[in-house]
């Protein structure tokens, strides 16, 4: 980083809010996808929106790449720094600005943790629905940037369905208000466009979220299966029966065993797979639907069904699920988490294919995922110190995502493309579509300074990867140089 720029940053911010020594910079080298690392040139921790505007104007002027960073829990390398570039941490933006219980909204700064939103709603009987497993750490800014989901998204929607307004600073330093206090706003639906845009279009400096009433009562059923495929079929059957559970999660035997060893949730370790099916509503309603769900589960081949006896047991069942990733972290040197989403009717088929691929590549895979949404999270276990294993894990992951696309699914349901799934984007989109994404990016960020190199692959990269769609026998952009 050029010294004059660092000096200028020190004029905008207090001295301790500009980090430029290598040792301290190391802490920002990666996000939750730690296999990818890059040392930034400088990290800044602004405290006000005006400072963010000044920093971005400075970067624009000096052509410095900027990567926004929330809690750094992202799993696709979205917050991976650009080597030598600037990291803009929102860590100081942790204020809850306004709680409006009557209109059921909360306005917060982007560095507020996801869990805080439900905590502030608690006293009014309200909660914030999207609940990523990382909710005690991840920030609402990061959630918006990734359109994060959680176990309750099946019924209550993803981040995009639960926010009302954003304040965003553009790379040119303009402060935009997107959305308003009402349920919609005039103009294009930029709220939707910005949600899930992975820090590529602007820096989010304020978020207004919607809170919803906490259901009176919730009950969870744990169904054990002797066959993974049967569990997959049960998921499709539940949705088909007209019931929308509050959560419908699946864990295979390896995940069950790892979680059980870690948190003692009371899971049946002999089962090949379990489903956790949560229903919420009035007690009568839940009882009625629970009867229907049990019938469907048994009809789909559940070997055993256990309804949580009380609230403590319900919490325990969920604790096992929520701790599944760290639990797997205890049994493997490293794991690599995939995030493909497929139509639910292909669950059984795709899980079978995933286990075949696991044998072919000789790397174990653990499955724990948002089954009700068809959102898979195969965790590929590998050892980063074993030569070539990371590359093998990545190749296996890529194959899994291609299977997802082949059945009409997508390469990422909630973790984002980041740096990780760039190649698979070439499989899912053709050159015209990718070019359209680049055009959107350019409309917001003409110089390509915000999180460059993430989320959307260049056409050149796709050509090298060799998976570019060829449309109607012709390559798109015939007039462009062959990358």
């Amino acid at each position: 980083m050029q010294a004059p720029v660092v000096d200028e940053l020190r004029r905008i911010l207090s001295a301790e809010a500009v980090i430029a020594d290598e040792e301290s910079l190391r802490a920002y080298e990666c996000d939750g996808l730690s296999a990818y690392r890059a040392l930034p040139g400088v990290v800044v921790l602004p405290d006000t929106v005006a400072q963010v505007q000044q920093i971005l104007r400075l970067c624009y002027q000096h052509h410095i790449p900027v990567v926004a960073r929330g809690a750094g829990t992202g799993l696709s390398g979205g917050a991976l720094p650009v080597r030598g570039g600037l990291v803009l941490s929102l860590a100081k933006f942790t204020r809850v600005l306004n709680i409006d219980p009557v209109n059921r909204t909360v306005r917060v700064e982007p560095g507020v943790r996801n869990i805080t939103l439900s905590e502030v709603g608690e006293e009014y009987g309200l909660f914030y629905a999207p609940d990523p497993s990382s909710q005690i750490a991840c920030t609402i800014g990061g959630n918006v940037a990734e359109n994060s989901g959680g176990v309750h998204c099946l019924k209550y929607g993803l981040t995009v369905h639960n926010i009302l307004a954003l304040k965003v600073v553009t790379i040119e330093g303009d402060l935009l208000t997107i959305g308003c206090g009402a349920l919609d706003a005039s103009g294009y639906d930029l709220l939707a466009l910005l949600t899930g845009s992975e820090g590529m279009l602007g820096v989010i400096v304020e978020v207004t979220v919607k809170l919803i009433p906490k259901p009176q009562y919730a009950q969870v059923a744990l169904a054990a299966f002797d066959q993974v495929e049967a569990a997959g079929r049960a998921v499709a059957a539940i949705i088909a029966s007209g019931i929308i559970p509050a959560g419908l999660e699946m864990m295979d035997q390896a995940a069950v065993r790892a979680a059980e060893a870690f948190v003692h949730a009371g899971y049946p370790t002999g089962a090949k797979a379990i489903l956790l099916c949560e229903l919420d509503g009035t007690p009568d309603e839940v009882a009625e639907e629970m009867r229907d769900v049990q019938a469907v589960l048994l009809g789909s081949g559940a070997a055993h069904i256990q309804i949580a006896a009380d609230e403590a047991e319900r919490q325990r069942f969920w604790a096992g699920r929520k701790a599944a990733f760290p639990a797997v972290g205890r049994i493997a040197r490293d794991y690599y988490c995939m995030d493909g989403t497929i139509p639910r009717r292909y669950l059984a088929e795709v899980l079978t294919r995933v286990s075949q691929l696991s044998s072919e590549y000789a790397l174990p895979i653990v499955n724990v995922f948002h089954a009700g949404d068809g959102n898979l999270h195969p965790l590929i276990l590998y050892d980063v110190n074993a030569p070539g294993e990371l590359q093998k894990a990545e190749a296996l992951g890529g194959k899994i995502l291609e299977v997802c696309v082949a059945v009409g699914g997508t390469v990422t349901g909630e973790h984002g493309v980041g740096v990780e799934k760039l190649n698979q984007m070439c499989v899912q989109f053709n050159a015209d579509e990718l070019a359209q994404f680049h055009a959107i990016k350019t409309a917001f960020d003409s110089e390509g300074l915000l999180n460059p190199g993430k989320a959307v692959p260049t056409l050149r990269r796709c050509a090298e990867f060799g998976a570019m769609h060829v449309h109607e026998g012709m390559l798109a952009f015939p007039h462009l140089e062959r990358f």
Partner: protein
Amino acid sequence: MPSPDQIQKELKQRVEAAYVAGQPLCIRGGGTKAFYGREVGPSQMLDVRSYSGIIAYEPTELVITARAGTTIDEIEETLAERGQMLAFEPPHFGEAATLGGTVACGLSGPRRPYVGPLRDFVLGIRCLAGTGKVLHFGGQVMKNVAGYDVSRLFAGALGTLGVLLEVTLKVQPMPKLEVTLQGKAALKEAIQSMNRWAGQPLPLSGSTCDGAYLTVRLSGNGSAVEQALRRLDLERVCESGAYWLAVREQRLAFFADEAPLWRLSVPPACNPLDVPGRWLLDWGGAQRWLTTNAPYETVRAAAREAGGHATLFRGGDRQGEVFDPLAPALARLHRRLKAAFDPRGILNPGRMYRDL
């Protein structure tokens, strides 16, 4: 009858030719919402009705994909046969209403505050950009963060970004039971009640107030509805489906007024706004219909002051701005985005804003 592929090809060629010639196109489905938005200036009509038909419907996946020219009636009838529905209750404004026009207008009915707006249910689209290129975004799955969310951006964009060819929507099971309740209430009192209830776990699916009566709909599983019925101090109305249809389709006597019709979208609990005219509140107070001859600026200022925005929905001057004007930086961004999809500005130019 030409095949869908042939029709798509023709549409594509029309847009390509218009792109080359810089010829503005006015995209038209059933024409049921031609009154909405601004008037498009001199242009050629691009009729997309013939590109129709349901492509895939998977009741077990809660997903339907259809061509843009398919009528909403056909889609809703198909869903109803399997006990499913479009939960956002789109207004049709006529039998000819098409899927494409419905998504482009992005309007939602009385159920919207409780289940989400139309755009929440859009999972994927295929479209023709302003260059004539066929592009596909999103898909058929519930969760998808691959690439920017262009599908939802198209909802409510009034055809200014592209010609919708196909849309995939998420659908929902119909509720087992629906009942309507009514009680006398003035606006202010109704707003308080509606918002108090909305903060409680009740199976609400509609709430309106016309200044004299507060009307509430409950939907869901039998026991939940029965229990909520007992908690609300309102009287049960017998035939209730017709009322909600009339609200959605703007067939209530309220809408017969000669004066321009405004739609004010505001925080649901805000007090009645001080603009002369007649009011009808929907969406639990979040969507307020107003017929008035008050100056446009008065209406806009009132909505803005309340934290929302106002749209000149029907009637009035369709050559002026009908949507709330955007702040300069935001307006600039809108123009750049429009140019990113439609570089020569040929698709429904001016339908949303004069210079868009």
